Protein backbone atom coordinates (compact mmCIF):
# COMPACT_ATOMS: atom_id res chain seq x y z
CA UNK A 1 0.00 0.00 0.00
CA UNK A 2 1.00 3.61 -0.48
CA UNK A 3 2.32 5.94 2.20
CA UNK A 4 1.07 9.35 3.23
CA UNK A 5 3.53 11.84 4.73
CA UNK A 6 1.97 14.28 7.19
CA UNK A 7 4.18 17.33 7.55
CA UNK A 8 3.65 19.81 10.36
CA UNK A 9 5.20 23.12 11.33
CA UNK A 10 8.04 21.52 13.29
CA UNK A 11 9.67 19.91 10.25
CA UNK A 12 9.35 21.97 7.08
CA UNK A 13 11.96 20.48 4.79
CA UNK A 14 12.02 17.89 2.06
CA UNK A 15 15.27 16.39 3.36
CA UNK A 16 13.69 15.28 6.64
CA UNK A 17 14.18 11.51 7.20
CA UNK A 18 10.40 11.08 7.06
CA UNK A 19 10.66 11.19 3.24
CA UNK A 20 13.35 8.49 3.12
CA UNK A 21 11.20 6.35 5.42
CA UNK A 22 8.20 6.73 3.11
CA UNK A 23 7.90 5.18 -0.31
CA UNK A 24 9.12 7.26 -3.27
CA UNK A 25 5.58 7.91 -4.47
CA UNK A 26 4.22 8.87 -1.06
CA UNK A 27 1.63 11.60 -1.06
CA UNK A 28 2.41 14.52 1.23
CA UNK A 29 0.08 16.84 3.09
CA UNK A 30 0.25 19.75 5.52
CA UNK A 31 -2.92 20.37 7.52
CA UNK A 32 -3.51 24.07 8.21
CA UNK A 33 -5.38 24.27 11.50
CA UNK A 34 -5.82 28.00 12.12
CA UNK A 35 -7.47 27.44 15.50
CA UNK A 36 -4.62 25.27 16.77
CA UNK A 37 -2.03 27.74 15.49
CA UNK A 38 -3.76 30.56 17.33
CA UNK A 39 -4.03 28.50 20.53
CA UNK A 40 -0.31 27.79 20.26
CA UNK A 41 0.44 31.53 20.01
CA UNK A 42 1.61 31.27 16.42
CA UNK A 43 0.93 34.84 15.33
CA UNK A 44 0.25 36.07 11.81
CA UNK A 45 3.90 36.89 11.15
CA UNK A 46 4.96 33.34 11.93
CA UNK A 47 2.01 31.95 9.99
CA UNK A 48 3.23 33.97 7.01
CA UNK A 49 6.73 32.52 7.40
CA UNK A 50 5.37 28.97 7.64
CA UNK A 51 3.00 29.29 4.68
CA UNK A 52 5.71 30.90 2.56
CA UNK A 53 7.91 27.90 3.31
CA UNK A 54 5.08 25.53 2.35
CA UNK A 55 4.62 27.31 -0.97
CA UNK A 56 8.27 26.80 -1.83
CA UNK A 57 8.08 23.13 -0.84
CA UNK A 58 4.96 22.63 -2.95
CA UNK A 59 6.80 24.06 -5.95
CA UNK A 60 9.56 21.44 -5.55
CA UNK A 61 7.53 18.34 -4.70
CA UNK A 62 3.94 17.21 -4.98
CA UNK A 63 2.30 18.17 -1.72
CA UNK A 64 -1.02 19.59 -0.67
CA UNK A 65 -2.14 21.96 2.04
CA UNK A 66 -5.52 21.15 3.56
CA UNK A 67 -7.55 23.10 6.05
CA UNK A 68 -8.90 21.53 9.24
CA UNK A 69 -7.86 19.41 12.18
CA UNK A 70 -5.16 16.86 11.40
CA UNK A 71 -6.90 14.00 13.18
CA UNK A 72 -10.08 14.65 11.20
CA UNK A 73 -8.57 15.40 7.79
CA UNK A 74 -5.80 12.81 7.60
CA UNK A 75 -7.90 9.60 7.83
CA UNK A 76 -9.95 10.79 4.86
CA UNK A 77 -6.86 11.76 2.88
CA UNK A 78 -5.17 8.46 3.71
CA UNK A 79 -8.22 6.56 2.53
CA UNK A 80 -8.36 8.60 -0.68
CA UNK A 81 -4.66 8.00 -1.33
CA UNK A 82 -4.99 4.29 -0.55
CA UNK A 83 -2.37 4.74 2.15
CA UNK A 84 -1.61 1.97 4.61
CA UNK A 85 0.83 4.11 6.54
CA UNK A 86 0.91 7.72 7.68
CA UNK A 87 4.43 8.90 8.42
CA UNK A 88 4.97 12.02 10.49
CA UNK A 89 8.10 13.78 11.79
CA UNK A 90 8.43 13.10 15.52
CA UNK A 91 8.00 16.14 17.76
CA UNK A 92 7.99 16.92 21.48
CA UNK A 93 5.00 19.27 20.98
CA UNK A 94 2.18 17.83 23.15
CA UNK A 95 -0.46 19.04 20.66
CA UNK A 96 1.18 17.12 17.81
CA UNK A 97 1.71 14.07 20.01
CA UNK A 98 -1.95 14.21 21.02
CA UNK A 99 -2.98 14.50 17.37
CA UNK A 100 -0.88 11.43 16.55
CA UNK A 101 -2.58 9.49 19.37
CA UNK A 102 -6.02 10.62 18.10
CA UNK A 103 -5.05 9.67 14.56
CA UNK A 104 -4.12 6.16 15.63
CA UNK A 105 -7.63 5.76 17.04
CA UNK A 106 -9.35 7.51 14.12
CA UNK A 107 -7.54 5.54 11.39
CA UNK A 108 -7.11 2.03 12.79
CA UNK A 109 -6.57 0.68 9.27
CA UNK A 110 -3.43 2.84 8.98
CA UNK A 111 -0.12 2.41 10.71
CA UNK A 112 0.98 5.80 12.06
CA UNK A 113 4.77 6.07 12.24
CA UNK A 114 6.63 8.97 13.93
CA UNK A 115 10.05 9.39 12.29
CA UNK A 116 12.87 10.99 14.30
CA UNK A 117 15.08 13.69 12.78
CA UNK A 118 18.83 13.08 12.46
CA UNK A 119 20.25 13.58 15.96
CA UNK A 120 22.35 16.57 16.95
CA UNK A 121 24.11 14.66 19.70
CA UNK A 122 24.09 10.98 20.55
CA UNK A 123 24.27 10.34 24.28
CA UNK A 124 25.15 7.01 25.84
CA UNK A 125 23.06 7.64 28.95
CA UNK A 126 20.15 9.82 29.98
CA UNK A 127 21.48 13.35 30.61
CA UNK A 128 20.72 15.34 33.75
CA UNK A 129 18.32 18.00 32.44
CA UNK A 130 18.18 20.15 35.56
CA UNK A 131 20.79 22.57 34.18
CA UNK A 132 22.20 23.10 30.69
CA UNK A 133 25.86 22.52 31.54
CA UNK A 134 25.14 19.13 33.09
CA UNK A 135 23.66 18.15 29.72
CA UNK A 136 26.44 19.88 27.75
CA UNK A 137 29.18 18.06 29.62
CA UNK A 138 27.71 14.79 28.37
CA UNK A 139 26.74 16.00 24.89
CA UNK A 140 29.83 18.03 23.99
CA UNK A 141 31.99 15.25 22.59
CA UNK A 142 29.27 14.02 20.25
CA UNK A 143 28.04 17.52 19.36
CA UNK A 144 31.46 18.64 18.18
CA UNK A 145 31.68 15.82 15.64
CA UNK A 146 29.91 15.89 12.26
CA UNK A 147 27.05 13.41 12.11
CA UNK A 148 24.24 12.45 9.81
CA UNK A 149 26.38 12.73 6.68
Amino acid at each position, binding site marked *: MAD*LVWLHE*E*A*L*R*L*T*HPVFAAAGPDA*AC*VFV*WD*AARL*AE*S*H*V*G*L*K*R*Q*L*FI*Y*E*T*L*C*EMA*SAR*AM*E*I*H*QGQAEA*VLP*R*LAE*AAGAGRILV*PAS*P*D*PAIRAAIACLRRAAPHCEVVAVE*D*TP*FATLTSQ*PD*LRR*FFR*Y*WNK*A*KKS*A*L*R*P*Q*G*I
Partner: protein
Amino acid sequence: MPICRVMNEMIPLPSRFTDRAALLAHIRALAGDSAADMPVPDIAAGGRRAAETALAAIDPRAYAVSRNHLDGAVTRLSPYIRHGVLSLDEVRNAALASVGDARQAEKFIQELAWRDYWQRVYLAHPERIWADVESYKTGFDASEYDPDLPADIAAGETGVACIDQFVATLVDTGYLHNHARMYLAAYIVHWRRVCWQAGARFFLDHLIDGDPASNNLSWQWIASTFSNKPYIFNLENVAKYCGPDINTIPRHNLVLDQSYERLSDLLFPYMGGTHG
Protein backbone atom coordinates in the same frame (compact mmCIF):
# COMPACT_ATOMS: atom_id res chain seq x y z
CA MET B 1 -1.64 11.83 -8.09
CA PRO B 2 -3.38 14.70 -6.32
CA ILE B 3 -5.02 13.28 -3.26
CA CYS B 4 -8.10 15.39 -3.82
CA ARG B 5 -8.84 13.95 -7.28
CA VAL B 6 -11.05 11.35 -5.66
CA MET B 7 -12.18 13.63 -2.87
CA ASN B 8 -14.17 16.39 -4.38
CA GLU B 9 -15.27 17.65 -1.02
CA MET B 10 -11.71 18.26 0.15
CA ILE B 11 -10.11 20.95 -1.96
CA PRO B 12 -6.48 21.78 -1.18
CA LEU B 13 -5.58 25.31 -0.25
CA PRO B 14 -3.61 27.29 -2.85
CA SER B 15 0.19 27.30 -2.79
CA ARG B 16 0.86 30.01 -5.38
CA PHE B 17 0.37 33.69 -4.75
CA THR B 18 1.25 36.77 -6.71
CA ASP B 19 3.11 38.31 -3.79
CA ARG B 20 3.46 38.36 -0.01
CA ALA B 21 0.50 40.70 0.39
CA ALA B 22 -1.77 38.19 -1.34
CA LEU B 23 -0.45 35.38 0.84
CA LEU B 24 -0.97 37.47 3.98
CA ALA B 25 -4.56 38.20 2.94
CA HIS B 26 -5.13 34.45 2.43
CA ILE B 27 -3.71 33.62 5.87
CA ARG B 28 -5.79 36.31 7.54
CA ALA B 29 -8.91 34.93 5.87
CA LEU B 30 -8.07 31.44 7.16
CA ALA B 31 -7.61 32.90 10.64
CA GLY B 32 -10.94 34.72 10.44
CA ASP B 33 -9.06 37.98 10.91
CA SER B 34 -11.19 40.75 9.46
CA ALA B 35 -9.62 43.64 11.34
CA ALA B 36 -8.35 46.73 9.57
CA ASP B 37 -5.69 46.45 6.90
CA MET B 38 -2.44 45.03 8.18
CA PRO B 39 0.77 46.08 6.46
CA VAL B 40 2.94 43.27 5.14
CA PRO B 41 5.45 42.70 7.95
CA ASP B 42 9.15 43.01 7.28
CA ILE B 43 10.03 39.45 8.33
CA ALA B 44 12.68 37.02 7.11
CA ALA B 45 11.81 35.08 3.94
CA GLY B 46 10.41 31.62 4.46
CA GLY B 47 11.72 28.58 2.61
CA ARG B 48 14.77 26.43 2.13
CA ARG B 49 16.50 28.69 -0.39
CA ALA B 50 16.59 31.58 2.05
CA ALA B 51 17.71 29.20 4.80
CA GLU B 52 20.59 27.87 2.71
CA THR B 53 21.68 31.41 1.84
CA ALA B 54 21.79 32.28 5.54
CA LEU B 55 23.60 29.02 6.35
CA ALA B 56 26.27 29.68 3.72
CA ALA B 57 27.02 33.02 5.37
CA ILE B 58 27.75 31.79 8.90
CA ASP B 59 31.09 32.67 10.46
CA PRO B 60 31.51 30.69 13.70
CA ARG B 61 34.79 32.43 14.63
CA ALA B 62 33.31 35.91 14.32
CA TYR B 63 30.16 34.68 16.06
CA ALA B 64 32.18 33.53 19.07
CA VAL B 65 33.63 36.99 19.71
CA SER B 66 30.77 39.28 18.69
CA ARG B 67 27.47 37.43 19.22
CA ASN B 68 26.46 39.46 22.29
CA HIS B 69 26.54 42.72 20.33
CA LEU B 70 23.40 43.71 18.45
CA ASP B 71 25.52 44.30 15.35
CA GLY B 72 27.60 41.14 15.91
CA ALA B 73 28.00 38.18 13.56
CA VAL B 74 24.74 36.49 14.50
CA THR B 75 23.30 34.15 11.89
CA ARG B 76 19.52 34.80 11.86
CA LEU B 77 19.10 31.04 11.35
CA SER B 78 16.69 30.70 14.27
CA PRO B 79 13.35 30.69 12.38
CA TYR B 80 14.69 28.08 9.95
CA ILE B 81 15.95 25.86 12.76
CA ARG B 82 12.83 26.32 14.84
CA HIS B 83 10.56 25.15 12.02
CA GLY B 84 12.86 22.39 10.83
CA VAL B 85 13.72 24.06 7.51
CA LEU B 86 17.28 23.36 8.63
CA SER B 87 18.20 20.55 11.03
CA LEU B 88 20.52 21.22 13.96
CA ASP B 89 22.66 18.42 12.59
CA GLU B 90 23.25 20.07 9.22
CA VAL B 91 23.87 23.49 10.78
CA ARG B 92 26.50 21.96 13.09
CA ASN B 93 28.07 20.14 10.15
CA ALA B 94 28.20 23.37 8.13
CA ALA B 95 29.83 25.16 11.08
CA LEU B 96 32.49 22.47 11.40
CA ALA B 97 33.14 22.55 7.65
CA SER B 98 33.70 26.29 7.77
CA VAL B 99 36.55 26.19 10.30
CA GLY B 100 39.94 24.52 10.34
CA ASP B 101 39.67 23.26 13.90
CA ALA B 102 36.45 22.13 15.62
CA ARG B 103 37.37 24.25 18.67
CA GLN B 104 36.88 27.38 16.55
CA ALA B 105 33.21 26.44 16.16
CA GLU B 106 32.68 25.31 19.75
CA LYS B 107 30.88 28.43 21.01
CA PHE B 108 28.59 28.42 17.96
CA ILE B 109 27.82 24.72 18.41
CA GLN B 110 27.24 25.21 22.13
CA GLU B 111 24.54 27.75 21.28
CA LEU B 112 22.96 25.16 18.95
CA ALA B 113 23.11 22.75 21.87
CA TRP B 114 20.84 25.04 23.89
CA ARG B 115 18.13 24.30 21.33
CA ASP B 116 18.77 20.54 21.63
CA TYR B 117 18.70 20.87 25.43
CA TRP B 118 15.40 22.78 25.50
CA GLN B 119 13.82 20.22 23.18
CA ARG B 120 14.94 17.38 25.45
CA VAL B 121 13.41 19.15 28.47
CA TYR B 122 10.21 19.72 26.46
CA LEU B 123 9.96 16.02 25.61
CA ALA B 124 10.78 14.78 29.11
CA HIS B 125 8.76 17.41 31.02
CA PRO B 126 6.13 19.08 28.83
CA GLU B 127 4.40 20.44 31.92
CA ARG B 128 7.40 22.70 32.57
CA ILE B 129 6.69 24.80 29.49
CA TRP B 130 4.00 26.87 31.19
CA ALA B 131 4.56 26.12 34.88
CA ASP B 132 7.31 27.37 37.17
CA VAL B 133 10.04 24.73 37.22
CA GLU B 134 11.28 26.08 40.56
CA SER B 135 10.28 28.94 42.87
CA TYR B 136 11.31 32.53 42.08
CA LYS B 137 14.61 33.40 43.76
CA THR B 138 13.74 37.08 43.99
CA GLY B 139 12.23 37.32 47.44
CA PHE B 140 8.75 37.43 45.89
CA ASP B 141 6.14 34.71 45.65
CA ALA B 142 4.74 33.80 42.21
CA SER B 143 1.39 35.24 43.31
CA GLU B 144 2.99 38.69 43.60
CA TYR B 145 3.63 38.87 39.84
CA ASP B 146 1.00 40.41 37.54
CA PRO B 147 -0.58 37.65 35.40
CA ASP B 148 -1.24 40.05 32.50
CA LEU B 149 1.12 42.03 30.30
CA PRO B 150 0.53 45.75 30.88
CA ALA B 151 -0.81 47.56 27.82
CA ASP B 152 2.03 50.08 27.73
CA ILE B 153 4.56 47.28 27.27
CA ALA B 154 2.59 45.62 24.46
CA ALA B 155 2.30 49.01 22.76
CA GLY B 156 5.97 49.89 23.26
CA GLU B 157 4.99 52.97 25.24
CA THR B 158 6.70 52.40 28.58
CA GLY B 159 8.67 55.62 28.42
CA VAL B 160 11.92 53.66 28.78
CA ALA B 161 13.49 54.46 25.43
CA CYS B 162 15.53 51.33 24.73
CA ILE B 163 12.74 49.04 25.94
CA ASP B 164 10.26 50.73 23.61
CA GLN B 165 12.70 50.32 20.72
CA PHE B 166 13.06 46.60 21.46
CA VAL B 167 9.27 46.17 21.52
CA ALA B 168 8.92 48.02 18.20
CA THR B 169 11.57 45.81 16.56
CA LEU B 170 9.88 42.67 17.88
CA VAL B 171 6.44 43.70 16.67
CA ASP B 172 7.58 45.03 13.28
CA THR B 173 10.06 42.30 12.28
CA GLY B 174 9.21 39.19 14.33
CA TYR B 175 12.86 39.08 15.37
CA LEU B 176 14.95 40.41 18.22
CA HIS B 177 18.64 39.83 18.95
CA ASN B 178 19.05 37.43 21.86
CA HIS B 179 20.62 40.05 24.11
CA ALA B 180 17.72 42.43 23.47
CA ARG B 181 15.31 39.57 24.29
CA MET B 182 17.09 39.15 27.63
CA TYR B 183 16.89 42.88 28.40
CA LEU B 184 13.21 43.07 27.49
CA ALA B 185 12.32 39.92 29.41
CA ALA B 186 14.19 41.06 32.51
CA TYR B 187 12.50 44.47 32.36
CA ILE B 188 9.07 42.86 32.13
CA VAL B 189 9.60 40.33 34.93
CA HIS B 190 11.83 42.22 37.37
CA TRP B 191 11.18 45.93 36.83
CA ARG B 192 7.44 45.57 36.22
CA ARG B 193 6.95 42.39 38.26
CA VAL B 194 4.91 40.66 35.55
CA CYS B 195 4.84 36.86 35.56
CA TRP B 196 7.12 35.34 32.94
CA GLN B 197 4.21 33.49 31.31
CA ALA B 198 2.63 36.77 30.18
CA GLY B 199 5.89 37.86 28.60
CA ALA B 200 6.45 34.46 27.03
CA ARG B 201 3.04 34.63 25.36
CA PHE B 202 3.85 38.10 24.03
CA PHE B 203 7.09 36.85 22.50
CA LEU B 204 5.50 33.71 21.00
CA ASP B 205 2.79 35.84 19.42
CA HIS B 206 5.38 37.95 17.59
CA LEU B 207 8.60 35.99 17.07
CA ILE B 208 8.86 34.05 13.82
CA ASP B 209 11.29 31.72 15.62
CA GLY B 210 8.92 31.47 18.59
CA ASP B 211 9.31 28.04 20.15
CA PRO B 212 7.50 26.99 23.32
CA ALA B 213 10.54 25.24 24.75
CA SER B 214 13.35 27.65 23.82
CA ASN B 215 11.23 30.72 24.49
CA ASN B 216 9.46 29.76 27.70
CA LEU B 217 12.38 28.03 29.37
CA SER B 218 14.59 31.02 28.53
CA TRP B 219 11.99 33.27 30.18
CA GLN B 220 12.18 31.00 33.22
CA TRP B 221 15.97 31.35 33.17
CA ILE B 222 15.57 35.15 33.27
CA ALA B 223 12.87 34.96 35.95
CA SER B 224 14.95 32.60 38.14
CA THR B 225 12.36 29.81 38.08
CA PHE B 226 14.80 27.72 36.00
CA SER B 227 18.11 29.19 37.15
CA ASN B 228 19.93 29.96 40.37
CA LYS B 229 19.34 33.73 40.38
CA PRO B 230 17.38 36.38 38.49
CA TYR B 231 18.99 37.98 35.43
CA ILE B 232 19.12 41.77 35.48
CA PHE B 233 21.05 44.38 33.50
CA ASN B 234 21.71 48.10 33.61
CA LEU B 235 21.92 50.93 31.12
CA GLU B 236 25.70 50.77 30.96
CA ASN B 237 25.40 47.18 29.73
CA VAL B 238 22.82 48.15 27.10
CA ALA B 239 25.11 50.92 25.86
CA LYS B 240 28.05 48.51 25.68
CA TYR B 241 26.27 45.94 23.51
CA CYS B 242 23.64 47.81 21.53
CA GLY B 243 25.48 50.47 19.56
CA PRO B 244 24.28 53.90 18.48
CA ASP B 245 20.95 52.78 16.98
CA ILE B 246 19.53 52.16 20.45
CA ASN B 247 18.74 55.15 22.62
CA THR B 248 20.78 54.83 25.82
CA ILE B 249 20.58 58.45 26.91
CA PRO B 250 20.25 58.26 30.72
CA ARG B 251 17.35 60.69 31.07
CA HIS B 252 15.37 58.60 28.56
CA ASN B 253 16.07 55.37 30.49
CA LEU B 254 15.99 56.49 34.10
CA VAL B 255 14.92 53.20 35.70
CA LEU B 256 17.83 51.36 34.11
CA ASP B 257 20.51 53.93 34.92
CA GLN B 258 21.80 52.46 38.18
CA SER B 259 24.63 50.30 39.44
CA TYR B 260 23.93 46.58 39.76
CA GLU B 261 24.13 46.84 43.53
CA ARG B 262 21.53 49.63 43.62
CA LEU B 263 19.27 47.81 41.15
CA SER B 264 19.43 44.63 43.23
CA ASP B 265 18.39 46.59 46.30
CA LEU B 266 15.56 48.30 44.41
CA LEU B 267 14.24 45.27 42.54
CA PHE B 268 14.76 42.59 45.20
CA PRO B 269 14.45 44.37 48.53
CA TYR B 270 13.96 41.11 50.42
CA MET B 271 17.11 39.52 49.00
CA GLY B 272 20.83 40.04 49.36
CA GLY B 273 22.55 41.70 46.36
CA THR B 274 22.42 39.59 43.19
CA HIS B 275 22.53 40.02 39.46
CA GLY B 276 23.03 37.93 36.34
